[in-house]
């Protein structure tokens, strides 16, 4: 990864308001590497415990990737919105499996409930990747969800990191997302 990108990731988490929401836009070719670098940076912060909403990567695979990249999954709870679309999966102590990524209300409820019981003052919400929402949902539904999500972040005293690939963001959605976040970090170049 380029030094410039590493610097962008490090500085992204400086000079932020008390509760913040960041958007990382990443090119598809380096998505995994840059995604892991961001996670490493943000989860290294003291006492951070995260809720990871995964929209396109199954929990079983995601945890393997995270562990391979030396990311401590003990600090994460997962909301897996995709595995059940292929069949049944039983919840465990670390992961809630939702029916499908169309279930935006249930995703909100899950974020709400899990964040409320996490024993940490430094709670983090991760949503990866935002573009998947637009595959399974209509644009207006995703827009409502973003409103609710940003509201939740303030009410629940969370910080948030949203991921998106460069190509999946059409201009309208990108503009909309940018209105909701405190900062957009472009790692796509």
């Amino acid at each position, binding site marked *: 990864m380029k030094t410039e990108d590493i610097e962008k990731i490090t500085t992204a988490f400086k000079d932020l308001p008390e509760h913040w929401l960041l958007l990382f836009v990443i090119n598809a070719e380096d998505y995994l590497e840059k995604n892991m670098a961001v996670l490493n940076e943000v989860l290294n912060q003291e006492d951070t415990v995260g809720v990871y909403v995964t929209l396109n990567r199954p929990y079983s*695979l995601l945890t393997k990737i995270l562990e391979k990249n030396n990311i401590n999954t003990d600090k994460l709870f997962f909301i897996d919105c995709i595995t059940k679309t*292929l069949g049944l999966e039983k919840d465990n102590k670390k992961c809630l499996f939702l029916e499908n990524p169309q279930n935006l209300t249930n995703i909100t409820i899950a974020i709400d409930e899990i964040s409320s019981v996490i024993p940490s003052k430094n709670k983090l919400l991760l949503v990866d990747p935002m573009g998947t929402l637009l595959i399974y949902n209509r644009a207006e539904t995703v827009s409502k969800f973003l409103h609710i999500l940003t509201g939740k972040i303030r009410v629940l005293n969370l910080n948030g990191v949203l991921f998106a690939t460069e190509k999946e963001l059409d201009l309208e959605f990108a503009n909309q997302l940018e209105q909701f976040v405190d900062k957009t970090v472009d790692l796509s170049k």
Partner: protein
Amino acid sequence: MSDEIEVKLFYSGKRESNILKQYEEGFNYLHEVNMNIQIIDVDKNPEEAEYFKIIATPALWIKTSGQNQKFFGLAEGLKQLLVNELQGKITLNMLEFKDGRLLAKNLQVEKSNRDEVEKLLQEKMESKGIYKFELEIYRPDEAYAEVSLISDKTIEEYGKIKKPDCLRITAFLSGIFTELFDKEVAGDEVHCKMQGNEKCLFRIMEKKESEEKTRERIRKMFK
């Protein structure tokens, strides 16, 4: 595995400019598993298309263990590459869902007209190897439909499974009806030809867990 595979995608940049976006998740997945795909715009590079005997676009040329395969129409070729692993299957379903939405979006039809919708979908489905498509129940106002069909794929596997397993068709139908109903819906296969039934039957509806059930499951997680 991926080292032995060579993939070339031929498309027309002039006529099929949206295709890279439509199948983006598939290309990303291939990239992640180190299966590099060479993308060739035949308008800019007609010589290469001619060399590989590409007579129509989009087309995928796949070389595995010395064997060459050509797929005209991108989806089927990509499916060959994606079907093996869990992430591949998820990606494939996502592409089917997108395909379904795109198909329905372009239908020139009054969506409340059941017969017209059925007729148009029948025509479109046949090109995808799906036959005897019927709208058993069609209630756009309630965002509910039941669909029966026969697919090429299920005929090949006839009688081999115990539970319904046409996941790709389920995703494709879910995409179609998301557009037709203008509402987020998901499908379930109720019974499958592979179980020995005459046809596959799918139910499409808003598939939501009750809020209370979600909360209850979370409470159990933290007990």
